[in-house]
C-alpha cells in the first residue's frame, strides 16, 4: 500500500544564522561572476602579450616596491576584517569595530599607495595596449577596492548602530567575504603584472 511522505516538523533555522543563509549564496554567485570577469581581463593580458612583439612590456622589470609591501597590507586587511567578524560573532561590538575599522584603514592605505604608484608610471592608458591593459586591470581592481571600502564603511556604521548580533549578521559575513575576494583577486593581478615578467612572460 502506498504511503504518503511528509516533511518532518523539527526545529529549523528561521532566517539567516551566522554566515549561513540565502545571502551567502547570493554573494557566492556574485563573486563567481566577478572572478570570471577578472579571469577574462587576465586572459586579455596573456593573449595580447603572447602574440606581441618584443618590447611590448613597458616595464620589463616592474618595481616591487611599494607594490609588494602594499600587497601584504591588503592581505593583512583581510585578516583584520576576519577578526572583526569573529568579534561580532562573540558579541563584542567594540572588537568588531576595531577589526572592521582596521580593515578599512588598511584598505584605504592600499588604495592611496596604488594611486601613488599609478602617478609614477612613465606611460599612460593610451600609450599602448600594455598601458591600456595595466591601467584598466588595476583600475577595475581599484573600483572593487572602492566598492569594498564602501561596504566596510556601511558595515562599520551598522555594527556601531547595533544592527548585527552574534547570530544575525549575514550582511556582515557577506560583506567581509566580498572583501576577501577583493584581496585574493589582487594576488592574481599582482602576479600577472608584477611577477610574470620576471618569469620571462612576453620578455
Amino acid at each position, binding site marked *: 500500500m502506498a504511503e504518503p511522505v511528509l516533511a518532518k516538523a523539527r526545529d529549523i533555522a528561521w532566517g539567516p544564522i551566522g554566515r549561513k543563509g540565502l545571502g551567502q549564496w*547570493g554573494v557566492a554567485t556574485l563573486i563567481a561572476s566577478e572572478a570570471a570577469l577578472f579571469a577574462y581581463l587576465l586572459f586579455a593580458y596573456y593573449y595580447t602579450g603572447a602574440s606581441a612583439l618584443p618590447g611590448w612590456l613597458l616595464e620589463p622589470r616592474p618595481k616591487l616596491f611599494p607594490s609588494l609591501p602594499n600587497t601584504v597590507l591588503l592581505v593583512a586587511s583581510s585578516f583584520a576584517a576576519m577578526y572583526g567578524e569573529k568579534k561580532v560573532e562573540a558579541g563584542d561590538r567594540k572588537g568588531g569595530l576595531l577589526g572592521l575599522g582596521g580593515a578599512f584603514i588598511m584598505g584605504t592605505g592600499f588604495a592611496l599607495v596604488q594611486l601613488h604608484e599609478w602617478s609614477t608610471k612613465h606611460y599612460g592608458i593610451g600609450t*599602448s595596449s600594455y598601458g591600456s591593459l595595466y591601467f584598466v586591470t588595476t583600475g577595475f581592481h581599484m573600483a572593487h577596492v572602492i566598492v569594498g571600502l564602501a561596504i566596510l564603511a556601511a558595515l562599520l556604521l551598522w555594527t556601531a548602530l547595533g544592527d548585527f548580533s552574534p547570530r544575525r549578521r549575514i550582511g556582515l559575513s557577506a560583506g567581509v567575504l566580498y572583501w576577501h575576494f577583493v584581496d585574493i583577486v589582487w594576488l592574481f593581478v599582482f602576479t600577472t603584472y608584477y611577477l610574470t615578467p620576471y618569469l620571462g612572460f612576453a620578455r
Partner: protein
Amino acid sequence: MTASATRTPEIGENTVELRARLHAIWQTEPGFKEFFTTVDHKEIGLRYIVTAFVLLALGGLEALVIRLQLAGPDLHVLTPEQYDQFFSMHGMTMIFLYASPILSGFSNYLWPLLLGSRDMAFPRLNAFSYWVYLAAALFLYVGFLTGNGPNDGWFNYVPYAQKQYNAGLNQDFYSLGMILLGISTSVGAANFIVTAFKMRAPGMSINRLPVFIWGTLTASVANLLVVPAVSLAFFLLWLDRQFGTSFFQTSGGGQPLLWQHLFWLFGHPWVYAIVLPAMGMVSDGLPIFCRRPLVGYSLVALSTVATMILGFGVWVHHMFATGLPALSLSFFSGASIIITFPSAVAVFAWLATIWTGRPVVTTAFLYFASMIVLFVIGGVSGFMTASVPVDWQLTDTYFVVAHIHYVLIGINVFPVVGATYMWLPKMTGRLLDETLGKWGFWTMFAGFNIGFLPMHLTGLFGMPRRIWTYSAGMGWSTLNLITSIGSFVFAFGVLIFFLNVWKSLRTGAVADADPWGGPTLEWAIPSPPAPYNFAVIPTVASRHPLWEGQLDESRTRSTLEQGMVLDCGKETLTTTPLDAIPERIVPMPKDTWAPLLLALAISVFFVSLLIQSWPLIALGTFWITAALIFWLWPRRSLLERPAAAEDRMAHG
C-alpha cells in the same frame, strides 16, 4: 535581546482559513504604487514574457523589411546604411532582447510553481533584473530610432566598430546597452542558480528536478560565468572609442582577434543558454501529451549539463577562418563534432517518448513535436560547420544564416509558443483556442520551412551574409524571393498566435487547475495561482508527484494537501542543495521601491556615460550608492522574533 533564531514549523491542512490568511500576507494590491513595487515572481515573469514578445514582434518587423529589400536583385527599399542597422538590430533584438528574456520570463513565472516554493530566492533582485532589462531594451531602441542603432552585426567585429570607421553614436549605444543588459542577465542567472539549489519543496532531490529546471539552471551557470566576457569586451571597445586605449587597435599593439575570443567565449555558450531551457520545455511538455514519463530522464538531464560543459570549449569554431594553427583547428573541430552526441540523446529520448506513449495531438504537442525535426535540421547544419575545411566554404554565407534560424526559431520560438499553449492557462486561467492554434501552427511551420529551408541552398550557392543587395546574375534571385514569401507567411502565423492569446484573454474557455493532466507541482494549484502559490508546502516523493497514483511505481506518495503552513508573515522554506531536506524558514521581502530606484539609478548612470556628462555621472554614482545602502540595510526585525502565535494574532 535575540530571541530564538529557530522555529518548529507548524504542519497543517490546506484550509480556507489558511488560504485567506496567506492571501492577506502575500497579495500585491492592484494599484499605481504596487505596479512599481511588486516583487511577486509571477508578475515579474509575465512582464518579462510580454516585453520579450513585444521585442519579438519588433525584431520580426525589422526582418520583414530586410526580406523586402532582399526579395529581388538590386532593390532599394533600404539604403546600405539603413540595411546595416536593420540587420544588426534584428539580430541583436532576437538574440539578446527576445530569446533569453522570454525564457527568463517563463522560468520566473514557473520555477517556484514547479519547485513547490512561494517565490524565487531573491524576489527584489528579480524585480531589479526585469527593470534593468526593460531599461536596456529602451536604451538600445532609443539609439535605433534616432539612427544610432548597432551597425556591425550582432557580433560587432572590431576594428569596423572602432571610431575611425564608425564615427557615430551607434557603437556607443550598443556597447553601453549591452553592458546594461549584462547586469540584468547576470543577476537573473544568480537568482535562478540559488533558487534551483535552495528553494525546492522537501523531497525534491536533485534527481527529481523537471528537465526545464535543469535547462535553465545550466544556462544560468553558463551566463553567470560568460556574460562578464562580453560585458568586458564591450567596455574595452567603449574605452578604445572614447579614451584612446589600444585593446583592439593594432596601431597601439592591440589585437583585433581579442574581441573575437572574448565575444565567442561568451557567444557560443550563450547559444546553448537560449536553447537548453527551451529543450527543457519540450522534455517536460511532450510527456504530458504522450501520457508517459520522459524516456531516459537521467540521460537527458546529464546531456543538458554535458552540452554546456563541451559548449565552453568550442568557441573557436566561430573563428576557423581567422588564420589559426592547424593543430588548434583540429582540436576545436573535433570537439564541435563530438558535441553532437548529447544533443542526439535528447532527440532519441523525445522520439522514444512519442513511440512508447499515446500522443494526444494538441497545438502544444504540435509545436513540441515539430521542434524535434527543426532541431535536427539545425543540428546537422551545425555539424557541417564543425568540419573546418567545409566551414571555410560555409561560414559567412547564407548557409550559416539558415542554420542560426533553425536553431533560434526551431529550438527557441517553437518550444516557447508550445509552452505558451501549455502554460498560459495556468497563468491566466483561460485556455487558448485549439482550432485557431492549429491553423497558427501550420502557418508558422509552413512559412518557416518555406522561408528557411531553401536558404541553405542560397548559402551553398555562395550568397555572403550581410550584403545589402545582390545582382541578378548570381543565381540567388528566385531563392531569395521564396525566402521572402516564406518569412511573410511565417510572420502571419506568429500574428495568429498573438491573436489567439488576445482572444483567450477576452473570451477563452476557463481552465481548471490541471487542464492537461500534468505531472508536476504547478498543476496541483489553481489557475491562476494564488499570490502565495502553495498554501501548504508540498512534500515530494517522485519526479511526477501528480502521476504517482496512475504509475504506481513506488511505495511512497507525495503529499500536497498537508504540509508546513508557514503563515507567520511572508515566509517560505529553503532546503538542502542535493536532497532537499528542510533547512530554514526564510522571511521573504515585501513589496519595495528599492529595485526600481536602483534600476533607474543605473540607467541614469549609463545615459551619463553615453553623453559623458560629469555632473550626471556623479549624480548616477551617488544615486546607485544610496539605493544600494537603502536596499541592503539590515532588517532589525530579524534581531527579535515574536513567538509564532503572537505573530499570527498580529496578522490575523
